[in-house]
């Protein structure tokens, strides 16, 4: 078992009157200064080796919050999460890239953000550059990169980090058709290695062909979790 959610809820406190000028009159009028938003309610999940989970839900259903909780960047309000294994967040590619630094420097910077040592990055460095097809530009500051090159580099670093659990958020639309095919091939190879992949997407065809499990979230509630095709049917009921 790689990921376990035991009755997990996450609330946000949304404060509407943040400045003093707004806060004081609203308190005088007896209004509450803010409200709790339940982003996720009583989620119970278990992901095992080889689970490729498609996460479906409308905007605001809690999909991003779920990924953030698994990535460990935010804490649950109640309940318990246990994670066994290394996580590769393939969300917001190139987060942490610095425009003034070269492609090479950014590979090392990004690799270390994912928790790799210099040695570990050295050993995958060539593969990263080759996969991103950036051999000619690797010593150029990334601010001169096209947005496609930037995304390719971000994707390439992220998928060359050794991991057990991969989090993705609509990222298979990187680069041109050829590169997209390479990304899909890469994902299929992860699937064969029995990695856990959590795949947030609105693209139902991709979800049904790629995933074997489906999770449907509706306004923070766990609407369905199980077989991917059933999940897609359930999701369609919500629309």
């Amino acid at each position: 078992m790689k990921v376990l959610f035991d009755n997990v809820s996450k609330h946000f406190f949304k404060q509407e009157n943040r400045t003093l000028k707004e806060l004081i009159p609203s308190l005088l009028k007896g209004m509450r200064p803010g409200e709790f938003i339940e982003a996720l309610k009583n989620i119970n999940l278990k992901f095992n080796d080889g689970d490729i989970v498609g996460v479906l839900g409308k905007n605001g259903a809690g999909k991003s919050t779920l990924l953030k909780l698994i990535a460990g960047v935010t804490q649950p309000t109640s309940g318990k999460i246990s994670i066994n294994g290394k996580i590769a967040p393939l969300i917001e590619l190139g987060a942490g890239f610095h425009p003034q630094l070269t492609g090479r420097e950014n590979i090392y910077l990004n690799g270390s953000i994912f928790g790799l040592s210099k040695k570990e990055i050295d050993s995958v460095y060539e593969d990263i550059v080759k996969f991103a097809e950036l051999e000619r530009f690797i010593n150029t500051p990334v601010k001169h990169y096209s947005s496609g090159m930037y995304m390719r580099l971000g994707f390439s670093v992220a998928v060359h980090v050794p991991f057990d659990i991969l989090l993705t958020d609509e990222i298979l639309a990187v680069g041109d058709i050829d590169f997209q095919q390479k990304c899909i091939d890469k994902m299929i190879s992860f699937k064969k290695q029995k990695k856990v992949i959590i795949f947030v997407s609105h693209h139902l065809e991709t979800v049904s062909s790629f995933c074997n499990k489906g999770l449907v979230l509706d306004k923070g509630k766990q609407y369905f979790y199980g077989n991917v095709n059933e999940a897609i049917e359930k999701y369609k009921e919500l629309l």
Partner: protein
Amino acid sequence: MITYFRNLYIHRYLLYNLTSREIKSRYAQSILGYFWILLNPLFQMLIMAFVFSFFIKIPSSFNIPYSIFIYTGLLPWNLFVYSITSSTNSLVENESLIKKVYFPREIIITATVIAKVYDYLLASTVLVGFLFYYHVNISPLIFFLPLILFIQILFSLGLSFLLSALNLFYRDIQYLMNSVFLVWFYLTPILYPIEMIPERYRFVLQLNPMSVLINAQRRTIFGGGDLNLNSIIIAILLSFGIFYLGYFIFKKLEGLFADVV
């Protein structure tokens, strides 16, 4: 404190990379590049030396030219202020990282502060040049300088942890700091020797760690009496206290960073 240093050790390669990103990126697109690190405090010193020795006559002490006197106060002061203002903004600037990847957030703060220490060391080379030029005698106490500097860094880290965490919730902190530092600057004997303050008010300066530390740094360089151990012990205790408190609050709030940034 042990947790803190252990985290730094585990994530040393990330710390190294974030620090070098901070250093490399700053003057990347400028002709003079790193020279700005030397030029800025130098100009600052020249202007202050001009104003405060021509218009308002402030005496120097330690038998050294007033310009060197100011410079030895400005360097640690700039280190202190830039460390804190940069780290306070650093969490906000690294929003995309904070929302996506988990690693102990104190690495970001520490990297920012180390980058400022690097600036300080570069700017100190100018001071060494001055000391040679004016044939200033160096005190044997100079070996204590790294220790005093370390205490100052601990104090700065503590405040940085506290303020950077609070600034994520209320950005008022970063605006408030400008005014606080302005007052604090004049409450610290940078432009004037501590002896100018009447004896009975001097305890105020003793409670200001920056005042004690800057005075101690001057003494380790120029001699002129022993280090005032009582004041230094107060400063050390305050610095450790602030470090513990800042780090404790920082770690308590860390889990909420991604929600509020």
